[in-house]
């Protein structure tokens, strides 16, 4: 069987079709949000939301148990969405207050998120093993319904991130100026936070909560090695996100590797290669005097003492 046949066989498998489609959507959407987060110096925000979302997953189980739902985890994803949005809004409020205490408040929230999740899942009658699928991803269990959810949320994320990119750029780049222009700064900040939370929950199935942030941030890190504008960085990061997600997932079709970790390791490898190749790709600028040619505004004292 040639490699082309193998790829065709892979694409004919419905489970793989769903997984690839989910990876494609998440790979495209996550770096778009990541670009804003990196620009706001909140590269680790996705991580924090992921931690908090774990409590949401466990809370979903608990509620599902109380309601005697047939499937324990029916409410896990809705729980994660709610917890992620609440968490991201709280992070945004802490950031808005500024000052050093915010750093500590965030750390406490992150650890509280993980501990709360582990504790609640036990209370709900589950075990830590139940959390593993959420912590490290379980793309092979993506069902048709999951795919619809992922697609709908990805459209919301891409719509907000791309459609309002100038406004979100303005508020991320220079918040004071945006405020002085009468822009609804708070609404836009909350929009970025909410969209980041939605991204975390859709990426949860693909790479897992612990690695969500990598899919948002690493493609941006790769893109900014080459791009020289915000728009290019975002477009390139999104393309890289799609490429590493689809290629990484495909690798796991032949090798029994965990998909989430494969995708993230692949992305980091690409970053390492990009940084190594950077001097070769960036042609040195032609040698000329970089100083502007302006008349001197400084009088040089040529004879100080005679």
């Amino acid at each position: 069987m040639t490699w082309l046949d193998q790829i065709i066989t892979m694409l004919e498998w419905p489970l793989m079709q769903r997984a690839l489609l989910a990876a494609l959507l998440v790979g495209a959407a996550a770096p778009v949000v990541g670009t804003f987060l990196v620009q706001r110096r909140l590269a680790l925000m996705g991580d924090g939301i992921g931690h908090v979302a774990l409590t949401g997953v466990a809370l979903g189980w608990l509620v599902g148990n109380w309601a005697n739902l047939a499937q324990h985890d029916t409410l896990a994803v809705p729980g994660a969405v709610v917890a992620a949005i609440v968490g991201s809004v709280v992070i945004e409020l802490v950031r808005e207050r500024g000052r050093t205490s915010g750093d500590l408040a965030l750390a406490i929230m992150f650890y509280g998120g993980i501990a709360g999740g582990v504790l609640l899942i036990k209370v709900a009658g589950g075990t830590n093993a139940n959390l593993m699928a959420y912590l490290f991803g379980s793309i092979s269990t993506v069902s048709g319904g999951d795919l619809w959810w992922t697609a709908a949320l990805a459209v919301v994320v891409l719509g907000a991130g791309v459609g309002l990119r100038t406004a979100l750029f303005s508020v991320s780049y220079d918040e004071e100026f945006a405020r002085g222009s009468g822009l609804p700064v708070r609404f836009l900040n909350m929009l970025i936070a909410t969209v980041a939370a939605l991204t975390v929950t859709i990426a949860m199935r693909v790479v897992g909560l612990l690695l969500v942030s990598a899919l948002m941030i690493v493609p941006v890190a790769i893109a900014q090695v080459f791009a020289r504008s915000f728009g290019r960085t975002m477009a390139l990061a999104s393309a890289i996100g799609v490429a590493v997600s689809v290629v990484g997932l495909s690798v796991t079709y032949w090798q029994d590797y965990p998909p989430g970790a494969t995708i993230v390791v692949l992305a980091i490898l690409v970053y390492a290669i990009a940084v190594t190749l950077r001097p070769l790709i960036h042609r040195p600028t032609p040698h000329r005097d970089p100083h502007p040619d302006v008349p001197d505004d400084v009088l040089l004292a040529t004879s100080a003492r005679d």
Partner: protein
Amino acid sequence: MSAAQPTPAAPAPADGPAVLEAEGLGVALGGQQILSGIDFTVRPGEVVALLGANGSGKSTLVRALLGIVPTDAGTVRLFGRPLGNGVPWNRVGYVPQRLPAATGVPANALEVVTSGLLTGRRLRPPRDARDRARAALEQVGLADKARRPVHELSGGQQQRVLIARALVRDPDLLVLDEPTSGIDIPTQQTFVDTVQRLHADGATILVILHELGPFTPLIQRALVLRHGRLVHDGAPPHARDEHAEPGHQHTHPHADPEPPGAGPTITIEVTP
């Protein structure tokens, strides 16, 4: 033009509704009263300098006037409307002192200037955004740098990008925060010429300055802040006559103060 010439044909301040009104304005930040009891009005077409020592509250006042920092007393009206959604924000252009610190994501000059087109409830740039941003960059002489990342530009060029970002919306009120600090003299002059042109077109200007410098011929009125209070509102202060003479050597006739005697000292002799 040189700084010593009088202003040619600047429109006189017109009567009519005030562009900017502050009434009993007070600002407290971090539990400290930064500004209190600020009252003044700026009429259409005026060029007003806001002067004062470092830390006297100049930047805070300007930021409070634009709603960037919250006020804790008094009211501000822009074009007759209290701060908020009712203000015609597209008529106000703000030029902060410097660019925000660089982040991991580069942004080019065109993108930064385009962001100036979003005001109030307008969250998407208009169709002709690109052309307008280019035209604004051309006005400040940076057309050839439109695609350069702003953090690669020199300090003076960055300042010009910030001015272009305010000019791109054709403001009727331009608020500048020390536009010429740290800028070489020829570039300062291009700023003055730009402000002059806007003023000739009828714009109102409020500019924070450390010293009047090249702006001297433009300034019609000065506000002076000291310890967070307005201590002067009227004619701009004049330099002492002999300082204004052409060819005046601005060296100090008096001896330098004695250096503090205590502690070890190092003497370096510099020979030309």
